[in-house]
């Protein structure tokens, strides 16, 4: 085997290296990737805004935006926090479901439901720039 390797010419060696060269390292990404990924996020934010004003989220015609214009007073920057009424520290998604069940008289969304993701994305986006204060009442 050593004989074979010794016999590789520099050109052949270069060819072998190129053939087996790995692609760009996995953690490198470009400006175009960033633009594209942010675009994906904003699409989901937009979907979240549509759901925020969608009467089909509940069963009585009430929509999130009625009580929360521009998602004000949802305070995503304070979660997780102790929710007195639930008697324990809870995540924002649980509060979203409380609202869907109660004022909207609808059914819970699963935590990984794309609609929940969209709602959370919209609310957080409207609160961008505000410092995190988890646990604040």
């Amino acid at each position, binding site marked *: 085997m050593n004989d074979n390797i010794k016999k590789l010419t520099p050109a052949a060696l270069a060819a072998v290296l190129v053939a087996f060269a790995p692609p760009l390292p996995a953690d490198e990404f470009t400006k175009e990737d960033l633009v594209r990924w942010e675009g994906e996020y904003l699409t989901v934010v937009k979907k979240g805004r549509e759901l925020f*004003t969608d009467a089909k989220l509940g069963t*009585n*015609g*009430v929509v999130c*935006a*009625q*009580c*929360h*214009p*521009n998602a*004000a*007073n949802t305070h995503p920057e304070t979660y997780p926090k102790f929710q*007195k*009424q639930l008697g324990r520290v809870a995540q924002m998604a649980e509060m979203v479901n*409380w609202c869907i069940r*109660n*004022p909207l008289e609808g059914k819970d969304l699963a935590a990984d439901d794309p609609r929940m993701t969209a709602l959370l994305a919209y609310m957080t986006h*409207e*609160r*961008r*720039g*505000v410092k995190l204060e988890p646990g*604040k*009442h």
Partner: protein
Amino acid sequence: MSKPISRRDFLKGAGALAAAGALPISMVELAFADPARNFTFAYISDAHIQHIQGSKFVRNWDRGLIRAVAETNLLDPKPDFVVFGGDLAQLGSKPELDHGAEIMSALRYKTYYVMGEHDYYLDLGEYWSKLFGRHYYSFDHKGVHFVVLNSILTYDDWTFRRWPTAEQRMLEMAGLDNPNGSPFMVGDKQREWLKQDLAKVSTGTPLVVLSHSPLQKIYKGWNFWTEDAEQIQALLKPFKKVTVIYGHVHQIQYNQIGNISFHAVMATAWPWPYPSTYAQAEQYLPKLTVPMNRADPFFERDATGWQFINLATGNADIQYNLYNNAVRTVAFNTRTGQPEDRAYQAADKRIPPQSHY
């Protein structure tokens, strides 16, 4: 709740409640030369009765209005009259206005109605007029001149030419944060009417203006705004004691601009956030205002209620009767010449439910 509580059942229970002092009724007593001129009136606003289908309405908002009407009926001494501050319906439909009017019909007092945008933009107030009368008017009561304005009009182009259907127009105006909305105004015609109306009133007569929009410019993004606010304020300037009472904002706000005291009333349906809680926008909230107490959003009637207004001195003293929060009283302080909260105005008197926004 599976069946609505009947009035009889409510009153049976209410006797016990009143005895326990749970009804938050307490008169604001003020020294006044002629006690015969004292009077009070109640203010119920922003019921937003919302139709689902058939005979079903959103139970939550129904309960808010039913409770306000029931408690107002139990007032003793009785108020001289009641004002409904606008937005009886949510989408201005006949079922909603009918259902709201039916609930309001249980009131045992004469009631004056103010137009709200949620009442107006479906049929431009046509059915509302059949139920409640003129869109703007004035009346005198015990030496005070009251003016009711329709202050939720907007540019003709938006009202008449922008939308393909009336339903669409109503939906667009119904969204508080809808970027396709249009700013409220009183408009040229009504301002001209107001000028003529006030010309017959002496400047010493206390003036109370009842409006849905704030007659100030607070936050345009949520239409906490009246486009011709300055022009209206200019018409009110000659009068010594002027109070503007407005709905629309679903929160406690109060302010003093020159000789005019401004007071917002609460909604019976739901509270709204203060504009300062929207991180992405600039707005102006009257500095005087001590925010409403927000105790427990999980309680359906949190930060909702109705008002009881005492006009003994010619300036308004307003008691906010909130179902789940401490009663708030905002009274005119003759020494400082502006409204102030009786308990919480000083910075060191605030409590957490007012500052946790």
